[in-house]
Every structure is written in C-alpha cells, then in structure tokens.
C-alpha cells in the first residue's frame, strides 16, 4: 500500500534526488530560453494548465532547498492516539489566544506611546479616534483574561490526566515556565494604559514583590527602576511586555510544540488499547502489552529465543 503522504504530496515534492546523485534525471541544460521546450509533453496553447502548475513548481523549488516536506507531512498526518477528545483542544486554544494577543498587540503598539505624559492620551486616541481602535484594545484586554483561563484549563487537563508523567516531564516544566511568563505579561500589561487603577495597582504589586525575603527589595527596585513609579518604570514594563517576555514565550512555545510532535499527545488515562487476538511475533512491542500468547502447555511463541508469554495476562500498565 502506498504511503498516505505519497498520495497527497505532489510528485515534485517527494524526495527529489539531488543533481549529480545517482537517480537524478539527466536533463541537458537548455541552450536558451526560446528554444528549450519543457521536458513534459505539454500543449503550449493551454496556458491555464501551465498556470496551475506554477504553485507546484514553486513548492518544488522551495522544497529542494528546505527539504521540509517530509517533516511537514509527517507532522500533519501523524496519528493521534485513540480516545483523543475535546479536552485535547485546550492547548491549541491557548496558542490561538496567544496569537490573538500578538496580533492585536502589534496594532496597539502602532499607536501607543510609552511615556508618562503621552501613554494615557495615546490610549484615549486609540479608543476614540482610531478605526476599530476600541474594539482591538478590548480584544487585547479581554483576550488576556481568556488566555489566563485557557492556560489554567490546559494545565488542569494535563494534571488530572497524568499527562506530565514519563516521557513528558520536560514538557510539563516548559509549560509551567510558560504559565509564569503569561502571568508576567498580565502584570506588566496592566500598567501600560496608565490610568489611576493601573498606576496604583502596579505600586501595590511592586511593593508586594518588595516584601519577599532576600531578593524582594532588589526585585522591586528592578521593577520600579527608580525611587518612585514613573517614566523609567513605564518604559521598563513596556520593554518587558513587548520584547523580553513575548520572545521567551514564542521560543518556549516552539520547544513545547516540538516535544508534543516528537512524543505525541497522551490518550485519556481510561482508554485502553484493544488486545490483539493473536500475539504477533513480528513486533516486540505487542509482546509486553498483549501477553495473550498464553498456552496451557507453556509453549508460547518466542521472539529471538525469548519466550514472550511469561508476562502477566493484564499487560496494561498498572
């Protein structure tokens, strides 16, 4: 049976041998553009068909240089385990909420001025004058709440499904760091509108950091960037909110997703693989789980000389 990816990927995208390698088609270089017809038998009059080929040619050109089609089709057509349900959309929903925050944030940044004298009026300008300004501002403001909720829901699912256990421990750690970074975004973004509420809430927040043991005073000094909350504080929060933390979040989301694709998503803990009727000696993998090569006479099938029916009948990980 041909591989699914072979059916879907157009021929030019499949592993094209590099020029000069064995198996590479030896096509003579065209003498000049006018006299060199395409190798394929094509009707020159049918330009429409040629136009249809253009994206394929372009993809082939790119893939010859990136060699990414194998990885991409592998990622797209990888199997997700049996039992995958709606709870497993919470991670991608969080990612989507982040994308909404990133896009609306870019548009807000086009009109926002991080200075104590102009921040408030630039937000007023966004709200009152800019086309759809208050709408985009509102999406960013409420999107933050939605993202925080989704992060916690996603973490709750991972926790109660035991999905942080072997072999996905590292991805849990990355996820917790992403949670902390999300809360950092929420804290630093709160000051930027520079109204009374955000100003005084940030003072209390910075003071709370200051009560911590040993590092507390240094942390609050770093956040305040001076003796009083003022212009330097605002630009520091702006830089953290716009550059530092988003960069870290994007990098860690990349690592998070890499591990998701690499290790696969978990199945719900209640889902059990159906035990095959007959032990398949072709696969070592089935041996430990199915364990149903049991015969009363003790002469079960063997793999590489090792009898495989000695396992317990329950096979499933306890």
């Amino acid at each position: 049976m041909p591989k699914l990816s072979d059916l879907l990927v157009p021929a030019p995208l499949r592993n094209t041998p590099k020029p000069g390698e064995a198996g590479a088609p030896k096509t003579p270089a065209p003498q000049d553009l006018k006299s060199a017809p395409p190798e394929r038998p094509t009707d020159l009059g049918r330009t429409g068909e040629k136009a249809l080929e253009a994206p394929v040619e372009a993809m082939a050109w790119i893939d010859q240089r990136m060699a990414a089609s194998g990885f991409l089709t592998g990622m797209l057509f990888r199997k997700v385990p049996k039992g995958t349900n709606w709870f497993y959309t919470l991670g991608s929903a969080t990612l989507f909420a982040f994308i909404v925050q990133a896009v609306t944030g870019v548009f807000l940044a086009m009109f926002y001025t991080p200075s104590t004298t102009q921040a408030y009026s630039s937000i007023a300008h966004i709200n009152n004058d800019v086309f759809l300004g208050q709408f985009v501002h509102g999406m960013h403001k409420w999107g933050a709440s939605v993202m925080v909720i989704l992060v916690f829901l996603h973490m709750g699912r991972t926790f109660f499904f035991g999905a942080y256990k072997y072999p996905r421990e590292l991805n849990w750690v990355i996820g917790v760091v992403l949670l902390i970074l999300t809360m950092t975004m929420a804290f630093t973004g709160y000051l930027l509108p520079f109204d009374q509420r955000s100003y005084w809430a940030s003072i209390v927040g910075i003071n709370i950091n200051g009560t911590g043991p040993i590092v507390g005073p240094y942390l609050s000094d770093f956040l305040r960037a001076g003796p009083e909350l003022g212009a330097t504080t605002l630009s520091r929060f702006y830089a953290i909110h716009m550059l530092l933390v988003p960069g870290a979040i994007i990098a860690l989301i990349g690592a998070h997703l890499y591990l998701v694709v690499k290790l696969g998503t978990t199945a719900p803990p209640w889902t059990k693989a159906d035990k095959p009727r007959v032990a398949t000696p072709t696969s070592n993998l089935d041996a430990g789980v199915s364990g149903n090569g049991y015969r009363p006479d003790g002469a079960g099938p063997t793999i590489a000389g090792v009898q495989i029916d000695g396992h317990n009948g329950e096979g499933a990980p306890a």
Partner: protein
Amino acid sequence: MKASDKQAYLEEYELLKKKGKPFFPYAVMKDSVMALVVVGVIIAMSLLLGAEQGPKADPTTTTYVPRPEWYFFFLFELLRVIKPPELVPIATIGIPTICMVLLLLLPFYDKGPERRPERRPLATTAGILTILAMGYLTYAGATSGSPTEIDMKVAPQYKAGAEIVAGSGCLACHKLGENGNNGPGPELTHIGARIPRAAIIRSIEIGPSIMPSFRELPKEKLNELADFLSSLN
C-alpha cells in the same frame, strides 16, 4: 517509575497510536472549531464590555482603587487571610514561590506509573483542593466591599478627613467600623487609641510594607486625614 513500567507505557502508547486517527483532518478539525469559539468569545467580550479608560494616573490625587486584575485576586486575598505583619513575606512571596516550585517539579516527585485520577487519590485531592482554594480566594476578592464608600457617624470637624479616607481608597485594605475590607492592612476602627498622631502621619507618608506612600498628598489634606484617624478611639 520502574524501567519496566516505562517500557509498558511506551508499548501501550504505540498500540493506542496505531488505533488512532491522523492529526489532519480529525484533530485539526476539533482544534479549528475550538479556535473559532475562542476568538468568538474574545470578540463578544470586546464588543459587550469594551475597554474604557479610568481617570488618568496621578500621583498627587488618590481617588483610586489599588486592586489588581481579577486573575491576581487569589494572591491579593492571601494577604487578607494571613494577617500578622511578620508573616506577610510568607503570604506574599513564600506561599506563591513554594507553590510554583512544587508545580515545576511535579513530574520529579510524582513518579508513579498510574495515570487515572481516581487511582491517584493524593494527587487528585491536592489538585481539587488547590482549585477550590484559588476559586474561593478569587471569589472573595471579587466580592470584597467597595473601598470608596464610608457610612458612619462623624463629628463635623472630622468630616473632611473621613471624605479623604473614602476618596483615597484606604478602605480597599483597611477596615473602619462597618466599612472597608479586613486586610491586608490593619484595622483602623480604633487606630487613634493604638498609635499617636505623629506615627499615623509617618505611616501615611512612608507607606510601610506593601502600602503605597501618600507623601504626594497636600499638607492640608494630610492634616485633616490625621485629625480624623487620631480621633478614632
């Protein structure tokens, strides 16, 4: 988790994966529906709730509510639960830091092979209790009394000071008779009997611990405020 448990899990997982469906289009379909719901909810919230500005930040006037966004209420409310000043660092940094470290290291101390929540009673109970505690603290933060209203009998000469207390958001953190919130700050009902007028002024100007400093308050207002507070005994 023993090596044999790990091996057994990987084998079981391999089987589950074989029985599964391809990511595209099945999982992608669910993810896309969910993404539409997410953006729909955000758009609806933006249209219904808007993004109105409060008054401009001003260090010299103090008509403000020093309250965080709702998702930090649970941290803020922790300060009301843990009152003694010497324990404040434990509430502000200690408990959140310990919780974060416990969360970060979870897979390194919970290494059992069992994944079903009903067979992990300790982990499941701890998880549910954490959710209930955070939910309760968030609810308590959301429903705490309005910090800008004051309703008590005040002698005419202290009226101005009482209005400054109401207008400056003191009651967000301090209890005053039947008004305000009991914490994080100490109760002010009998503050005049507990500390002298000069100490009250010093506290307002310095802003001890997590309290913001009010040194930008005009001298006249500061005196009226101190008059009112030191009359409470």
